[in-house]
């Protein structure tokens, strides 16, 4: 089976800082793949490379057999890659519902003129969007927050709304940037259940950047460890946890 996403010799530097150095990895269809590493290791940079917010200095990213390294950032979602952000990037002044409906943007077929007149086809499309959004709301238990404005929500809920919004794209690949940061232990445990649900119900492949090793070892199939932008180790969670190089990266010599 060929990999859903493969990164080949990715490198990225900001001036003299090498954020990502010659990193390669393959993510298989349907797996939960975690990227770990100390702060500043370049985990989020890898995400930003995949979602094309950064331009790689060299290397290639192949998604579903197609190179995406020169696609514009807004095409990535329609290819089936959705992401969340480390500190949440929601649309603050909108309701949870509208945030999630944005996730359906790539699936729209209406044009400006039909929208100005709100033709029947646009209404039908809105209802269809709504049905899909409600499925996600059910999956992630967001019913009670449906019509609340993001600005009024607690942080834990915002993180879930962001995951929900990404799911509304119905992505093949979901990038979760520190899904448990800022959550309490109970909420973190919920996250691991949701990851399970998402990969089962939506058949989405998940790449996750995470610091919480409990969550990583419980949910992920394989783990990539990096430090200072460079590859350290790749393997199952238990292999990685006992890997001498990984321990050295976190604890020093």
């Amino acid at each position, binding site marked *: 089976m060929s990999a859903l996403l493969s990164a080949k010799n990715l490198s990225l530097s900001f001036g003299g800082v090498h954020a990502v150095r010659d990193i390669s990895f393959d993510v298989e269809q349907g797996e939960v793949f975690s990227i770990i590493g100390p702060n500043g290791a370049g985990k989020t940079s890898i995400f*930003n490379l995949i*979602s094309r*917010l*950064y331009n790689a200095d060299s290397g290639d990213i192949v998604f579903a057999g197609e190179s995406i390294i020169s696609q*514009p*950032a*807004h*095409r*990535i*979602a*329609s290819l089936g890659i*959705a*992401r969340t*952000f*480390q*500190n*949440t*990037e*929601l*649309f*603050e*002044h*909108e309701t949870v*519902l*509208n945030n999630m*409906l*944005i*996730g*359906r*943007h*790539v699936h*729209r077929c*209406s044009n*400006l003129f039909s*929208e*100005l*007149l*709100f033709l029947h086809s*646009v*209404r039908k*499309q*809105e*209802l269809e969007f*709504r*049905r899909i959004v409600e499925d996600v709301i059910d999956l992630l238990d967001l019913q009670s927050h449906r019509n609340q404005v993001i600005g009024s929500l607690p*942080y834990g809920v915002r993180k879930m709304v962001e995951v929900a*919004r990404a799911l509304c*794209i119905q992505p093949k690949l979901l990038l979760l940037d520190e899904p448990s940061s800022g959550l309490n232990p109970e909420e973190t445990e919920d996250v691991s259940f949701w990851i399970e649900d998402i990969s089962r119900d939506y058949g989405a492949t998940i790449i996750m950047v995470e610091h919480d090793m409990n969550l990583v070892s419980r949910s992920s199939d394989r783990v990539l460890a990096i430090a200072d932008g460079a590859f350290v180790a790749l393997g199952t969670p238990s292999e990685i946890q006992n890997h001498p190089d990984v321990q050295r990266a976190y604890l020093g010599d």
Partner: protein
Amino acid sequence: MRFILKTHYQQDIDVFKHNGQRFWFGLLALLVIVAPLFIDTFYLGELSLVYIYAIAGIGLMLLVGHTGLVSLGHAAFLAIGAYAHAWFIGKGWPLPLSILLAGLLSAAAGAMVGRPTLRMTGIYLAIATLAFAHIVEQIIAHWEPVTGGFRGQLVPDAVFMGFDLSRGIPFYYLCLFVVVLCLLAALNLLRSPTGRSMVAIRDSEISAQSMGIDLARTKTIAFAVSAGFTGVAGALFAHKLGYLAPDAFTMLTSIQLLLMVVVGGLGSMHGVFYGAIFIVVLPQFIAIMRDTLPTAIGQLPGLEPGLFGLILVLFLIFEPLGIYGRWLKVKQFFDEFPLYRKATHKRQKSYLRTERLR
């Protein structure tokens, strides 16, 4: 307080959310329809002006309030609409077609401005649009064969199916009809994917991009639609003025339009109408004040723009959500009567923001 039992997704999509709204807006519609029977010609003219400003305001609100792009050059689109309309009407084209074409031409000009200014935001965009408005002003002043230059030109009467709609009660109904049409179109846009993507860009460009929204395309659309509505307003404004000259479309007009959306309340269509009423009433108020104040103050030449600026600044500091925002707060106070706390609407600092990636 009203609780709505929702039984169908349609209820979230519909323009009116519940019967209370249907009743009050119905009553309002009835009032403005019978208004000409009760109020005299002067006030009817002022009310028509409110509608005209509201149409321009709908356009500017979509750009400033919903897409988060500030334009200081909307007088230019008003001018393009007005002159285009005068030209088409002068050529003997039917009124509805002429208004529509004025809007489309203005929208095309908007797209032309939108495209090269995409990379700009905030103050830089404001300056760029200001420059554009200045260019348009100069073109109007010097393109004499079409615009009449500094001497200006008379606007031909708006005759449609034998009726003269260019003044008085028929003009009032024309403005009312167009403003309702424009409002519906804007509300339709806002409940569709394009409107949502505009709001998404306002709140977070970076995540809008990751959700598959093409920033360049959406911003261009926002500019074009905004300019289009303003152009339609310009067409009606031409009849209101009766005589077109470049000094009707100066920077002061642009600032007046911006004042309207800020004072009304950014991000809401209610705000457009509050703002429109405000900027129609304000000059009257200033005129009355000039007479009552001591001559030294009352006859100051820059009093009007000075006051506009002052009010804009005061609103930005004390009530950034404008008149509509204030109205919502008052409503909430009564809704939750004994429970309302002073801190409810205290502005909070937000500490969490992903690094902006630029």
